[in-house]
């Protein structure tokens, strides 16, 4: 899975053109599903900073996403802030919680980091559920206002689509920029070999925490969008289950391939939405999807379509890791 650091503007414009035409030809339900896909691309891209670029797997992204959603929901409903003004607090809140809880765990390797993020996920969820006077507890937060831009309310599925598309595109391009920057280079170096990168004067801890900041920030932005789209949030929307889904999306995409992650998000998120009428059978199908996906495509769905020529360095790496 080699990574393409530069944006291919031709392909991006083609994809955007298709996506811009979509809402004018597709039925409302398809746009509704597309909105969820676009919202989910944000936390998935965020997760990409952690999984793809520091080699860690986080199972707390759903909770951090929830923090972003709760910050904007509480500021707009309880303090009457205008929704747009809560974007920055939502992102900052997510970063604060994500980094305060996850930062100390970043030095843990592999499996132990996953264990720690499960703890974080459960802690955030239990607090959201039980801090009744602050978050509304199991009642959730109702009637969250829609985002308004200059007197125009983005309150329909159709109009929200363009907001979500704009934010998803912006976050994709920004993430690409970051990955191509010197910082992205350092992160990729760390993910390849922490010891070697610390030997060439990369501050490993600092960069790993920075990756976590980016990861939480993107989750917070996604939570902001989510809260203003569904307009009603509840702690049980941010349990371990969405964290698993988000992680699966980033894993099915194949490491280090933002495009792969976006494709996987589109497939998995629309699959879960379309399966919704089937009740518990939907969850059985979803569990089977995770299980069979991991059993048969452990390297991501895009590994079905091998790249034309792997770089020599990667071949060597694969041979040595096979031995």
């Amino acid at each position, binding site marked *: 899975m080699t990574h393409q650091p530069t944006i291919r503007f031709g392909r991006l414009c083609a994809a955007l053109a298709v996506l811009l035409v979509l809402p004018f030809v597709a039925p409302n339900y398809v746009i509704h599903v597309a909105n969820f896909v676009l919202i989910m691309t944000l936390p998935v891209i965020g997760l990409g900073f952690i999984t793809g670029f520091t080699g860690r*797997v986080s199972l707390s992204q759903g909770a951090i996403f929830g923090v972003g959603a709760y910050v904007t929901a509480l500021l707009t409903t309880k303090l009457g802030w205008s929704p747009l003004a809560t974007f920055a607090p939502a992102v900052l809140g997510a970063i604060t919680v994500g980094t305060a809880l996850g930062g100390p765990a970043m030095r843990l*390797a592999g499996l132990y980091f*996953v264990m*720690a993020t*499960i*703890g974080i996920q459960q802690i955030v969820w239990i607090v959201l559920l039980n801090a009744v006077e602050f978050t509304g507890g199991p009642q959730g937060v109702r009637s969250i206002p829609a985002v308004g831009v200059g007197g125009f309310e983005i309150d329909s599925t159709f109009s929200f689509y363009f907001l979500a598309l704009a934010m998803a595109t912006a976050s994709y391009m920004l993430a690409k920029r970051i990955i191509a920057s010197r910082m992205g280079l350092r992160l990729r170096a760390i993910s390849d070999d922490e010891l070697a990168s610390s030997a060439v004067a990369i501050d490993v801890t600092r960069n790993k925490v920075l990756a976590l900041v980016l990861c939480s920030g993107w989750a917070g932005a996604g939570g902001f969008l989510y809260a203003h789209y569904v307009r009603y949030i509840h702690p049980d929307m941010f349990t371990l289950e969405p964290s698993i889904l988000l992680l699966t999306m980033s894993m099915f995409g194949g490491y280090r391939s933002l495009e792969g992650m976006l494709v996987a998000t589109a497939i998995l998120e629309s699959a879960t939405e379309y399966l919704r009428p089937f009740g*518990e059978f939907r969850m059985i199908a979803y569990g089977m999807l*995770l299980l069979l996906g991991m059993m048969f495509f452990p390297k991501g769905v895009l590994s079905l379509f091998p790249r034309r020529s792997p770089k020599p360095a990667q071949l060597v790496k694969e041979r040595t890791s096979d031995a």
Partner: protein
Amino acid sequence: METTGSVGMLLQILIGGIATGSIYAVVGLGFTLLYRAMKMVNFAQGHVFMAGTFLGLIIANRFALPAIPLLLIVMVLAFLIGVVLERIVFRRLYHDHDVFIVGAIGLGIVLMNTVRVFFPEPVPFPKVFGERLVEFGGARFQEAYLWVIGCTVVLVALLHSFFTYTRHGRAMRAVASDAEIAGTVGVNVPRAIAHIFGLTFAVAAGAGVLIGPLYFVSFDMGDMVGLKAFAAAVLGGINSVPGTILGGIAIGLLENLAGTYISSAYKDLVAFVILLAMLVFRPNGLLGTSTPVKV
């Protein structure tokens, strides 16, 4: 409870805590056994525990069995299911721990929702351990609590003797410390691993039958117990069997004490705060031996 003074109440909390803690310890043993052998974490463990409860429920409703045979039958069945699942499912997930975790979680979701199709509502479990109230030093509790604690002690003793005194148990320990070398001295490694999976399933299902009569049983009971048992394993040291038992009982006690004296709403938080704090400050756990986890 008018007769319980503060000492009686404390005793009651302690016994309840040890009983819940025993369950965490037994389920947590599944994490520990698997971690020692494979360096993997099976997050379906909690759902196996839940499925074990329902297996016990189905058998107990069909045949009026006393407690001990019921427990044994469920554990043997769970062992066989574990061996079969290892062969057809888990063996394909050994690539790395991320793949294994997501795959196992997928399996857990399948288990949970399959049970949900048949038992959408919480159902009562037959009172196989009797319904008498035991009074002891001012504390009053159900007889079943003593069964839970007693069975845990027996189970742990049996597991210990199995691993220490039998040939097959020693072979499993050899696989856990170094599978390659164990293979060269003639241990059938794939079979030992399959049996370890079987054992993790058996202990989880056994714990399920033990807890069943104390509460209503429902399809989602495995989620929380599984994650708390996991926290217990990390607290005591995920590669240490005595550590896991200590960790389980410690979490059960702390959680019950915090639920009574601090806040019942945040009772569930205890296990996860301990989990996070242990991983950050002492990832080897209380009794674990060193594993190079920090970079």
